[in-house]
């Protein structure tokens, strides 16, 4: 999973909101219920300071667990179960602090409340349901032991015990399950959204490839169709004009093949491929380059190479091809014994020619806008 995908950022924001909600509930419960219960039940305790100590221990565990939960970089020392053990101890301490007759009163807030701590402690764990179940079980056993010690195991007290136990467990496990489900839903939505985006991107890429293919097909057709039509209509293949046209068509097809190759310097690669073909025709070609070609869009490369390519294709016995490149200028020239022809001047490049001493010089230049 990439963290940068916007869908996941949204999902993470939802996750954060649900963890904050869990922390807020636990804090509100501890301050709004446990604290008043301790203060107003002060007379119910055998050892009130012990109850206060339990409340403080609970608070410390709660703060540490919340900090660890809200800051992914931090971890609880000794893991969540160590803190969960301490939480159970704080619950047990409150039971011990209470007078035996007050064990089912509001003053014994600990055993009903420690579940909220467990909620935060086990929050990030995959095994949170089983962790919570084990925690609730131990908590219930501690309370039962406390009741046994206070000699309060009759039906009425057991009934009260079960009501409080199931009430608090339902609230705590329910909150955890609800928030986790919320989290899961957000992740599902994010995953769906990113799958959809990927599918759209794939489709767009396929459309682009298809469009490129059509464009290249049109170019290949343009390169080969006229001369093939001419030959089909009975043109004499030994006619120099037909041969020149064939050579130009072949060079254009070569360029189309070469320019899609994945080469570090596509312009030079295309130029070399064309030179190679023309050399095979028996023309002596001298290719010289100076400088490093800056990255150029395909249209510029095509425009830049068009006139030199035709001059090369029309060369009879010799050609000197040069490529001079600086950061903002690329110039290709061909000096060959080709006959003069109508030089193509594509958009975006400047083409110059000169004929002297039986040699045709063509220069095609692009300057950065």
């Amino acid at each position, binding site marked *: 999973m990439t963290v940068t995908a916007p869908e996941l950022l949204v999902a993470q924001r939802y996750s954060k909101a649900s963890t904050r909600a869990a922390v807020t509930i636990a804090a509100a419960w501890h301050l709004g219920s446990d604290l008043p219960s301790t203060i107003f039940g002060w007379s119910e305790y055998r050892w009130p300071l012990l109850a206060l100590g339990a409340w403080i221990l609970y608070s410390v565990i709660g703060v540490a667990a919340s900090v660890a939960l809200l800051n992914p970089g931090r971890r609880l020392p000794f893991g969540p179960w160590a803190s969960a053990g301490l939480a159970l101890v704080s619950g047990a301490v409150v039971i011990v602090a209470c007078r035996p007759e007050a064990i089912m009163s509001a003053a014994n807030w600990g055993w009903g409340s420690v579940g909220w701590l467990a909620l935060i402690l086990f929050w990030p764990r995959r095994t949170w349901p089983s962790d919570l179940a084990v925690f609730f079980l131990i908590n219930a056993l501690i309370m039962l032991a406390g009741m046994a010690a206070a000699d309060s195991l009759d039906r009425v007290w057991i009934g009260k015990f079960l009501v409080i136990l199931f009430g608090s467990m339902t609230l705590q496990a329910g909150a955890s399950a609800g928030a986790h489900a919320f989290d899961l839903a957000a992740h599902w939505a994010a995953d769906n959204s990113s799958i959809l985006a990927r599918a759209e991107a794939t489709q767009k890429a396929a459309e682009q490839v298809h469009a490129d293919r059509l464009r290249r097909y049109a170019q290949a057709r343009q390169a080969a169709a006229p001369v093939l039509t001419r030959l089909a209509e009975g043109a004499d293949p030994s006619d120099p004009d037909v041969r020149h046209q064939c050579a130009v068509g072949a060079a254009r097809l070569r360029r189309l093949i070469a320019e899609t190759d994945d080469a570090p310097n596509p312009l030079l690669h295309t130029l070399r491929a064309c030179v190679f073909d023309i050399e095979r025709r028996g023309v002596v070609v001298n290719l010289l380059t100076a*400088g490093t070609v800056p990255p150029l869009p395909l249209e510029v490369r095509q425009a830049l190479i068009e006139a030199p390519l035709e001059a090369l294709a029309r060369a009879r016995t010799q050609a000197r091809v040069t490529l*001079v490149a600086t950061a903002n200028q690329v110039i290709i020239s061909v000096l060959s014994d080709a006959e003069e022809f109508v030089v193509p001047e594509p958009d975006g490049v400047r083409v110059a020619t000169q004929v002297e001493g039986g040699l045709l010089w063509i220069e095609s230049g692009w300057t950065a806008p």
Partner: protein
Amino acid sequence: MDRERLDRPVRLAVVEDLPVVLEGMRSWVAADPLKRVEIIASGDTLEAVLDGPGADADVLLLDLELNGVLMIGRIPELCAQGRRVVVYSVHEDEETVLNVLKAGAATFITKGESAEHCLETIVAVAWDRPYVTPTMAGALVVADAGTARPMLSAREREALLLWFQGMNKQSVATRMGITEATVKQYIERARIKYASTGRAAPTKTTLLARAIQDGLITPDDIIEYQSFAADGPQN
């Protein structure tokens, strides 16, 4: 070094490790109708050539790569001894060309250059005249465009570019609407500008002195160019 023209052939010493290239050079020299050059020594190491008759050569033709080792590091000491070094190589990338020139070599010829260019170069160097091979011209154009303070004028640059593209000087003149002599001047002046960068060497001083004598540049130009060299990049 103050001879105007040599009344004898230029004495050339060749340091080359490939016999076939040496034979090619011999045949070019022999084929020159004016018999302007004579090979007086050859060998496959600098020591083999310079310890013998090669010590008195007018021009030292040095293959840049001898037995797989690049000789750029040896060029400064040769130039400091007052030797006119012409480097020739298959490495024709502009960086190599410039490093060779900065090291003090008079000229750079690629092995792809024609017999005519090769002999012209050797003779020009023997007379302490600047000679720019087309390959060098390409390297100068690119190097000049790549510096923060270009030294070449637009016309010098254009002349060098057309020269690199393979036009002869007459065609360059026609293209630029100037005389052939002016084309020659533009190209040579460009060379002189770059001769004044890099390491100082007696051969360079002679080259610059000749350039002033020929009216190619003025002494003021040199001061300006040397100040560039002082803070310019040195490899």
